[in-house]
């Protein structure tokens, strides 16, 4: 029993290390779903390109 529980502890430690590694990996390469997205109001601003375009770029510009 003792040796069996020792084995379980080793497996558990290994599992913990794996979870840890996955968490670090996830943090260093965030999935697109986890990227921070800002809500910027669009209305009342000039637009170039079709309103149906799937991607919207907002640019804060200084012409000078």
């Amino acid at each position, binding site marked *: 029993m003792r040796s069996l529980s020792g084995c379980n502890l080793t497996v558990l430690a290994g599992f913990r290390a794996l979870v840890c590694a996955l968490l670090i990996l996830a943090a260093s390469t965030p999935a*697109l779903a986890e990227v921070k997205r800002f809500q910027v109001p669009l209305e009342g601003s000039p637009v170039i390109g079709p309103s149906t375009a799937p*991607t919207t*770029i907002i*640019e804060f510009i200084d012409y000078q």
Partner: protein
Amino acid sequence: MGEYEGKVRLVIKTYPYKYRDFAHMAAEAALAAWDQGRFEEMHSILLKNSPKLERTNLILYAKELGLDMDRFIRDLDGMKHRDHIERDKKLALELDLYNTPSFFINGRRVLGNVPYEYFKKVIEEEMDALGQ
């Protein structure tokens, strides 16, 4: 933009710096052209000719576009879009933006003059995510 024709729309927020002489007036010119349905053209001209953005230059650009000049000059000199520009500046500060250009690509913030390749990478990630 040409590369992503039809797939991207660009929304412009005016963020002229206080200490630059013609930045505010140039933004007024862009918005005055917007009122006359010629924003895209004026936007391109201003970018191409920056920093030649004195009042006389702006009037010349408006003439090139064939704008209604009485209206354009009245809007420019009367700072018709001051509230619009102030609104955009306030929004920029709320978003902690202290540099131009600053971008949000589907809400993802991209600050400053980043290499085009990086910009492209973000756009393409977004398009992939949307299955475009």
